[in-house]
């Protein structure tokens, strides 16, 4: 037997051993990745019990399905598996969950986000998503995103003035880039004045 330390085993070798039912290899793999998996889950869930459950489920699955799972890149596999579990969990607990906090704080966080790469990437994707929405919905979202108004309020506001203002607003918004967001509150004042 060689004397290489646990962390020096390659994932591929460990997974191969696991596939054949080697519990030791599984424990080595767990030792190597559990902390990152737990931290990743905890970041989103802010709940030790839920984070534990997610890590348990993902690793249990790796063992139980060892003969059929063919994992090429274990860190990537864990990332996706944990992400999907979290999505599932927060979807079920939709009423209140820390996972939605960023969503609700979006306008506030946006201003501080200028030099944060993650935020930049996120905003690009958000913009791309908005562009796929029907125009009416886009307006509502943009107002909400920049103004932090409850969607209901915007809907009622737009509902009242929908016929008259919507087209203008739609056109205007096409031209207003997110980077020019300070202009948007003006539009809302105009909207409110009209209604």
């Amino acid at each position: 037997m060689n004397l290489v330390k646990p962390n020096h085993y390659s994932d591929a070798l460990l997974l191969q051993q696991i596939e054949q039912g080697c519990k030791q290899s599984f424990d080595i793999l767990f030792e190597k990745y559990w902390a990152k998996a737990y931290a990743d889950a905890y970041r989103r869930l802010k709940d030790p019990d839920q984070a534990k459950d997610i890590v348990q489920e993902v690793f249990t699955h790796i063992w139980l399905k060892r003969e059929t799972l063919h994992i090429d890149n274990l860190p990537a596999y864990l990332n996706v598996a944990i992400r999907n579990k979290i999505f599932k969990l927060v979807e079920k607990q939709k009423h209140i969950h820390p996972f939605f906090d960023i969503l609700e704080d979006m306008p506030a966080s946006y201003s501080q986000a200028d030099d944060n790469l993650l935020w930049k990437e996120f905003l690009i994707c958000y913009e791309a998503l908005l562009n796929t929405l029907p125009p009416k919905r886009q307006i509502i979202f943009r107002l909400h995103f920049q103004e932090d108004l409850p969607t209901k309020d915007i809907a009622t506001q737009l509902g009242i003035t929908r016929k008259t203002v919507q087209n203008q607003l739609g056109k205007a918004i096409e031209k207003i880039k997110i980077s020019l967001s300070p202009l948007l509150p003006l539009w809302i004042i105009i909207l409110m004045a009209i209604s």
Partner: protein
Amino acid sequence: MDKQYFLELLHKYLNDKATDVEQQFLIKYYDLFLTEPDVIALLSDEQKEKLKKEINASIWQNIDAASAPGKKVLTINTRFLKIAAAAVLIGFCATIFLVLRTQPERKPVQPVAARKQKPDLFILLADGSKVILSYGSKLSYPSSFNGRTKREVYLQGEAFFDIKHIDSKPFVVHTGKLETTVLGTAFNVKDIPGDKTITVTVTRGRVKVSDNNKVLGIIIPNQQITYDKVQLNATQNRINASLYTTWAEKDDLYFEDVTVEAAARLLEARRKVKIEFADELVKSKRFTATFDKSESLDKELKIICEFNDATYSYDKEKTTITIKSKPQTNQTSNL
């Protein structure tokens, strides 16, 4: 960003229906959390070691439980384990839990694979009122309301009530200092320990909420009273009641020793179908089962029928379902 829309996206994503753009958005949203601190780094070596051992032990327990012959995959839940640990050793209790869940003494339990969500408990009270008790909540109620002037129950946590109308006997839910009095109606009461407030939400009928005999308000559908447990005052709002009661329709549901008829009534409400009985015999049979929210109506009907020696059939329009006893039992079928 609208939460409702975000949940729609999540739902689409989980059902493999999200577009690339939608997927990317969700993934990038998820990645935003990378700026949150690494909780492991904040733990001491001892705490880390303890946590690691706990998780590892649970994994092997899950694996053993899943690999045992004849058992389907079930995962042990940390929250449940915590409760169990108070009484007995964690591992021992978890095993018992699994055994109980899969092989109850009285009636067979539906062998659901990989049921991870905690089920709500469906309770049929002696007067025919229905209660869906949220997981972890407690309800104390008498086995019979006979000889009492009021129908009184005591709630800790959250429950949805659908109360049978009896003019002469008001139904009272006690939640801490708060009393919710009704004659016959459907409403939701939420009093989570640790929360500062108790909320009462009405979906049907009229509900009176009072505090030490002082009436705080009488509310009707789509109204809600929020009672501040600290300041002892109440506020009344207009709301969309369905938002507060969807949990009762959507969560997994645990039926404990209920009659087939009671289960059918609940299924009617949840699934928007009509269920009839071809004979009386099957109606009063009792069973215990868990229904996963993701299961189809057919699966649920099949479970009910299998446990109670019955069969079910749809009418031509597929709007009414008829349940009848299997031929070998005595039946008075009028199909």
